Every structure is written in structure tokens, then in C-alpha cells.
């Protein structure tokens, strides 16, 4: 008695015709969600940690102020002096009326400098600020 080997007649292949479509869909998603890194950070800082934190919903409204451990202040792409902050921020606020200033201050910095920056921001009427912190687990 002879056993006949059963073999399927169909081709054993995964259809790859739709792969480009899937990849393009992924690509589109990433293209839409990407915000490219715009600036090089020139100061070194370590953020403090906190529990009661909020997400900043609209990234396009955010403008950053970095304060490094040595007290250097960076706005946009360059290191600035304390007195220059007011002018820069005033211009920013004219472009974006409800700008949020995210303060990325080194955790070992002193409050005096932070307060000075805040006073400058007040003069420029940039009143919405956000102390950038990492989440504490």
C-alpha cells in the first residue's frame, strides 16, 4: 500500500506587496509627530526631580532657558547675559503671545540667579513659566 504524500498546491509565500504601504504609513506617522532637535545645549545641567508634575501639552509654545551648574544662561542657541533676557523674551512674546518659558535649571544652582531671571521674564511679560523636572519614582 502506498501512501500518497499530501502536499498543498498553493504557493507557500507571504505576500509582500503591501509592505511598502505599511512602511509608508509608519513613516508618515513619524514624520508628522517629529519635532526635530533645534538647538545644541551648551551648558551642563542636571534637572531636579519632583512628583507633582504636568506635561506641557503644546510643544510649539515652549521656549527654553537653560541655566548650567556654573551659572551660564542659554537662550535659543547662544549663551546670554542676564540683562539680555528681557529683550529676547519680549521679542519672543510678540511672535507667540502665550509662550511658556521652560526653565531648565541645574539642581545645585542658587535661587538668587533663578529669581533674577524670573524678574527679567516678568519685565518682558512672559508670565507662564515651567520648572522643568524629571519624574521622581
Amino acid at each position: 500500500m502506498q501512501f500518497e504524500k499530501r502536499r498543498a498546491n498553493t504557493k507557500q509565500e507571504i505576500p509582500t506587496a503591501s509592505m511598502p504601504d505599511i512602511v509608508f504609513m509608519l513613516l508618515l506617522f513619524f514624520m508628522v509627530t517629529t519635532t526635530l532637535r533645534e538647538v545644541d545645549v551648551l551648558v551642563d545641567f542636571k534637572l531636579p526631580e519632583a512628583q507633582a508634575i504636568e506635561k506641557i501639552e503644546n510643544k510649539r509654545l515652549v521656549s527654553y532657558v537653560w541655566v548650567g551648574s556654573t551659572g551660564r544662561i542659554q537662550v535659543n542657541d547662544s549663551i546670554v547675559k542676564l540683562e539680555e533676557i528681557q529683550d529676547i523674551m519680549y521679542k519672543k512674546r510678540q511672535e507667540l503671545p502665550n509662550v511658556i518659558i521652560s526653565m531648565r535649571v541645574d539642581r545645585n544652582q542658587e535661587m538668587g540667579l533663578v529669581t533674577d531671571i524670573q524678574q527679567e521674564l516678568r519685565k518682558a511679560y512672559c508670565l507662564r513659566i515651567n520648572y522643568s523636572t524629571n519624574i521622581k519614582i
Partner: protein
Amino acid sequence: MIKKRKIKEASIPTASMADIAFLLLLFFLVATVIDVDTGIGLALPEPIEETDIVPVSRERMAALLVNENGDVLLDGAPISIFQIKNQLKPRIISKIELPANKKLIVSLKTDRKTNYNLYIQTLDQVKLSYFETRDEYSNSNFGRKYNDLDEESQKKVQDKIPIIISLAEPESIKK
């Protein structure tokens, strides 16, 4: 006589399209910044030349002072950072039903030499006590946490428990 030639089916090879798409995808994957901005939000007061001194009753104020030695004082008494929340929460809760001009004001004052991290820790505790109170209030009144409420109810909770944090300017230290 002109022979009619049959045109072969013209086609663009699409086999490499997936590769190109993958390359683009890889670029965007690498270039994407995933980290979300998180932090403690605050609104600074408007710049005013002349400050009117508004008398505020002591009962309404919670004065926090973080001095340069790293001590935290609540209404003049030293307190550990982790105790702030326990002290503030009952005071916020007791003022929920009071009118808007009687709500608690938290005044946060620092010295010029105060460590920034300590200031954030203190501010974090203040915020945390407000958030927890809001959560508890919405849980008992709307049956959901504050963040899951619709905007209208959130507004109601905000009216009941407004976050009033007053940043006092640090005293300049004479050299």
C-alpha cells in the same frame, strides 16, 4: 506595409520601494525626540512698580520659608519637607466651602543662597497637596479623579480649590 508592434507592458520596478521607505522611516525614528517636557507650571505675577500692600489675615496665609541653610519653615516653625503636605492638606480642605477671597494662600519665600533643588522639592510638596485635595474632592463629588473629569467639572473643582502660590522675592543679603 506597417507592422503593428505590440508594446510590451511598461513597468517601474517597485521592489526597492520598500527599502527606500525603510530608510526614510529609520531616519525619522532616529531623529524623533521622544522625551516629553514635564515640569511644575507656575504663573509669575505681573510687573508692578508700586505694590499695594493688601492686608491678609494670618489664618489665610501659609508662609513657607526655605532659607540658605536648607531649613524649611512653615509659619515660622521648622518642618521637614515631607511633612509639608500633611500640614497643608487639612488647611486647604477646611477652606473648600469658603468664598474665593478666603481661600488659602501659600507664600513661598527663599533666600538668595537657597539651593534650587530644595526649592523645587518644597514647591513640589505644595503642588502635591493641592493635587491630592483636588483628586479627593472630585472623587467624592463626581466619582472620578480630577484629570478624568470633563472640562466643566474641572472648572468647578478649580473654583473650589484654586492653587494660589505667591512667590515672595528673596531678601537680598548684604555682603
